């Protein structure tokens, strides 16, 4: 049987393409009838309410939702049909902030950030700001998608970019099931090309990290043991090396929420998340040290809140009015999706956050 090609929720005109519909769903049913506590109630029990920011460490900028892939669990609902792309004008506003921020990490994400027509110009300018850790979240296949992207490994190297890439499994079947046919082979080729210019080598300063997120309705296992398994398998099968693996939990929003509902796994998955609630993870959850900036310059507590349209609860809501001190004095907006970041060892764009 030929698998139907996946489209974004937006392309399908799905009700779940609307953020308010997702938020409504996440507040109804098992959370409305009291079977499970709402996230606010749960963190109240452990003395973490209201959730407040700590020192800002990471500026995460989403430069657009366009992507060459349509992965089944994408929380951005990214795809080739998405036209939301950051303009140069907004990038300039971001650059002003980057030059003055107290954050030590700049994290560019998408979509496929490389598909933004001003991506290279932006990286060139941003790299001059002297930020300690400059991350680009590259989906790997973009490097092999078109001749104009073939030199990306060299470009990343030139600007000392820290490459972070998704890789759901070390086997073809599991990877292609989640990310699309042919993604595994292209990703392997791209990783080999990154290795060839020095990325991911044991003593190299050219950082190459991989992101693992489960291929279905289950939580990630121990990050360190997954990293060992990935390292052994990718080295043995393809001679590939990388530095660290970040194990990330799928949050129940956008296409993953759609999948959970369609496969009748939603309730079980929410029970798993709530059962695995870990107060130690709440202490270090990424919204406490990150500001997420959308393609159109709005500010959010995290990339997930961005996709749910939940702008920061602050007088400063847009990059053009950016003020770190004012922003840091806010309450973080929460809902039931936040259980995804507090389950087990916790989850963030930098992987686990607790032992």
């Amino acid at each position, binding site marked *: 049987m030929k698998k139907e090609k996946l489209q974004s929720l937006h392309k399908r005109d799905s009700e779940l393409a609307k953020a308010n519909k997702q938020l409504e769903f996440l507040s109804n049913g098992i959370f409305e009838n009291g079977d499970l506590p709402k996230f606010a109630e749960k963190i109240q029990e452990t003395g973490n309410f209201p959730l407040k920011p700590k020192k800002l460490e990471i500026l995460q900028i989403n430069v657009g939702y366009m992507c060459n892939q349509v992965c089944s669990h994408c929380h951005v609902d990214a795809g080739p049909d998405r036209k939301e792309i950051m303009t140069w004008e907004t990038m300039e506003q971001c650059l002003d902030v980057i030059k003055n921020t107290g954050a030590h990490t700049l994290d560019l994400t998408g979509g496929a950030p490389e598909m933004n027509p001003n991506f290279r110009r932006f990286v060139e300018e941003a790299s001059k700001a002297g930020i300690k850790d400059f991350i680009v979240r590259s989906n790997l296949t973009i490097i092999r998608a078109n001749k104009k992207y073939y030199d990306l490994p060299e470009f990343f190297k030139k600007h000392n970019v820290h490459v972070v890439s998704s890789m759901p499994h*070390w086997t073809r079947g599991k990877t292609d099931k989640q990310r699309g046919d042919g993604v595994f082979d292209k990703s392997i080729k791209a990783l080999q090309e990154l290795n060839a210019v020095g990325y991911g080598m044991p003593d190299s300063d050219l950082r190459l990290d991989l992101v*693992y997120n*489960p291929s279905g309705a*289950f939580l990630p*296992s121990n990050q360190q*043991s997954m990293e060992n398994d*990935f390292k052994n398998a990718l080295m043995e099968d393809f001679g590939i090396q990388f530095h660290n693996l970040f194990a990330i939990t799928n949050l129940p929003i956008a296409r993953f929420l759609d999948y959970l509902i369609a496969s009748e796994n939603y309730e079980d998955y929410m*029970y798993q998340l709530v059962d695995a609630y870990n107060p130690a993870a709440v202490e270090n959850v990424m919204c406490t040290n990150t500001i997420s900036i959308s393609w159109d310059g709005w500010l959010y507590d995290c990339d997930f809140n961005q996709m749910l349209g939940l702008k920061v609860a602050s007088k400063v809501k847009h990059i053009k009015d950016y003020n770190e001190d004012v922003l840091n004095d806010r309450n973080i907006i929460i809902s039931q999706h936040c259980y995804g970041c507090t389950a087990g060892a916790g989850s963030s764009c930098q992987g686990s956050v607790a032992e």
Partner: protein
Amino acid sequence: MSNYYDSKDLRKFGDITEWSEELGEKFFDYYGKVFEDGALTAREKSLIALAVAHTEQCPYCIDAYTKDALQRGITKAEMMEAIHAGAAIKGGASLVHGVMMMNKVNKLDG
């Protein structure tokens, strides 16, 4: 009792402690310790648990350890081989009693 098994009951496993706190807690402490990394890795133990779940034909255990295997990145091929190992022992355990039958036949009718 309309159904003997309900998948939602697996979530209530911990509740057994409510009616016998000391024994329940001792069991879960022991259970947790057994599945930590030791002379065998937690991954190896997960595959043993999956195989035993099948030989015991316990729906709750099959549910739990299939999920556990997926979480650990264990492949379908590894999971199925583990079940075959359990099935082979289960089959062998039946068949090896054939020797008992043969001994009896030989004694009665040899």
